[in-house]
């Protein structure tokens, strides 16, 4: 999905690969390679929410971590505001981290239980904005706690005194402390109760509008993704299989895997039960993915030609591309 580099683009991911080596060593079996991410390209424009959707092992979280340089990609480049990130040292990365922050899935394990909310939230300020006075820091913490819908008086409490949804709000507050431009949210609502999940999705939408945040939203749930995204990218075994404007992709999904994911979202109306469209089998082992199109072993539309070559993304509409060789499905 190469687009002309304009000022409108905040993040570019180019040819990203992340391969892990498993086993090997001088005693063991020959090393095997897991291609967790294998040649992924996409851009995120300023103020846009791009969602990465996929099941376990699709590589969606690996991309999130590689974008923030938490794990260096094996190949490819990430450009943030035009600046290449791959190959930067930790020290060189530090000033950039202020502009790109992460919200994690599990609000229980991502907050240090021994720190109060105030300590948790002031840590990023001490690192990235050491010039602030104690009072300025405190004002800022109070303002952000209000922004995410928490009571500033609770800043002296510890994480265990909050419910799951409130903890996720603390996680979001921490990510917002340094006024980032890009937020990478890795399954931020999947550990939450349904009613609270809606609260957090609404909060993220509101923050996007109020603060002009750009967001990479990683999720396995297409229904959630449909609510929050401007664009959606669907991944399967380390590759993008479809990417496009949310509207176009959800109304007219082209890749059989996207269709399967949509069919798997439960229908909320018990009066319209219909036979399930089931995919065969499990996701193949990423150690030995099928040749050609990785989805062909589970695809109801597979043909012999699907085994020949890995299908490239091709545009089916102006802002909508799919990696399926078939046009007739």
């Amino acid at each position, binding site marked *: 999905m190469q687009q002309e580099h304009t000022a409108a683009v905040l993040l570019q991911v180019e040819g990203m690969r992340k391969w892990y080596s498993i086993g090997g060593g001088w005693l063991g079996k020959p090393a095997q390679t897991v291609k967790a991410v294998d040649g992924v390209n996409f851009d995120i424009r300023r103020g846009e929410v791009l969602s990465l959707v996929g099941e376990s092992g699709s590589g969606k979280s690996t991309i999130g971590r590689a974008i923030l340089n938490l794990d260096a990609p094996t190949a490819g480049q990430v450009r943030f505001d035009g600046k290449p990130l791959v190959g930067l040292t930790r020290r060189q990365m530090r000033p950039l981290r202020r502009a790109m922050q992460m919200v994690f899935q599990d609000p229980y394990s991502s907050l240090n239980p021994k720190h109060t909310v105030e300590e948790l939230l002031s840590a990023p300020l001490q690192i990235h904005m050491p010039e602030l006075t104690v009072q300025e820091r405190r004002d800022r913490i109070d303002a952000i706690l209000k922004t995410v819908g928490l009571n500033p008086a609770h800043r002296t409490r510890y994480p265990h005194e909050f419910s799951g949804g409130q903890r996720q709000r603390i996680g979001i507050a921490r990510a917002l402390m340094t006024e980032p431009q890009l937020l990478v949210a890795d399954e931020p609502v999947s550990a939450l*109760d*349904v009613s*609270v999940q809606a609260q957090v999705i609404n909060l993220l939408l509101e923050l996007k509008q109020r603060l002009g945040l750009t967001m990479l939203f990683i999720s396995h749930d297409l*229904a959630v993704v449909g*609510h929050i995204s401007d664009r959606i990218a669907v991944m399967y075994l380390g590759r993008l299989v479809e990417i496009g404007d949310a509207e176009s992709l959800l109304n007219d999904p082209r890749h059989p895997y996207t269709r399967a*994911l949509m069919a798997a979202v439960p229908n*909320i109306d018990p009066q319209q039960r219909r036979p399930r469209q089931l995919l065969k089998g499990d996701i193949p082992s990423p150690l030995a993915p099928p040749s050609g199109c990785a989805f062909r072993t589970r695809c109801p539309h597979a043909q012999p030609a699907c085994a020949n070559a890995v299908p490239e993304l091709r545009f089916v509409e102006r802002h909508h591309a799919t990696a399926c060789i078939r046009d007739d499905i």
Partner: protein
Amino acid sequence: MDHLEPLHFVPAAESAEVDNILEVRDLNVTFRASGGPVRAVRDVSFTLRRGENLALVGETSSGKSVTCLGLLGLTPPAPHCTISGSARLAARDGKTYELVGTPERVMRQVRGGAASVIFQEPMTSLNPVHTVGAQICESLHLHLGMKGRAATERAAELLNEVGISDPKRRLANYPHELSGGMRQRVMIAMAIACEPSLLIADEPTTALDVTIQAQILELLQKLQSDNGMAMIYITHNLGTVAEIADRVMVMYAGRIVETTDVVSLFAQPRHPYSRGLIQSVPRLHSNRARKTPLFAIPGNVPDPTSHPPGCTFGPRCSHFEPGRCDVAVPDLEGVGPGHLVRCVRWPEIQGAV
């Protein structure tokens, strides 16, 4: 689609029928905690018929899982946890078991025999150091006295029944060698090994990928229609409830707040909490509604050690009326055939959102 017909309108009071697999009366489960007693389950009564799928819906600390752990005697022993009430389970062999206050010796036969359970995370429920074959055979040995080749063959049959290909070879696999979906299938195979009359499925698909979730739901439904076992399906996911349940019980803070058949729950939910839960499910095809805020229930579930007075949902409810809702805990009231709701204002708020 005859399983959708509203056949299950058995008011809680008149349920002494032979077709009832499980009758639960006034079940209470209380934990002892440092902050005082935690009444995790309060006055829960329900009846489950042969072949029926009853969904127990609720969020964290609603008491949905504890209800079932209590029924199976899997809660901690007294004085850490006390259970009162009655729960009568009819086994396939005609015996009836009282599950509350029964000695552990008997409960050990009930569990995995007349009543089985599958949990959310199959990796932690399976023993990592034994092959799946050994674990299935153990259950066959303990409950049915099967040994050796007979047990192995039955185990392979069971794996086949739950849709695992090449079952003979799979018996020699360890849990870590299987995918999440396969592990859950193995758990289901163990659970149905002794043809239980009751299967409790506690969030069986929450840890699985969506395409695998659909496969497991399909399997559970097939097994139920094949052998007529009753199922209690515990979940927080209302979407899957709409897909597989016959009847639904919505729990909040330890109490049943609404119970009815699945069609009327989604068509005419009466309790504000049920309505809120249904509305807050993100829909896939709601393009009009996209980027508009999702409906969200404000606030959080109450602290289990200090419930608000009166209706426990009151502080989060948009229909809360001081003087009525915060006085006494509302009774479960009949609002239609087999439809009970615990809200004093249900007649007034019927048309409201």
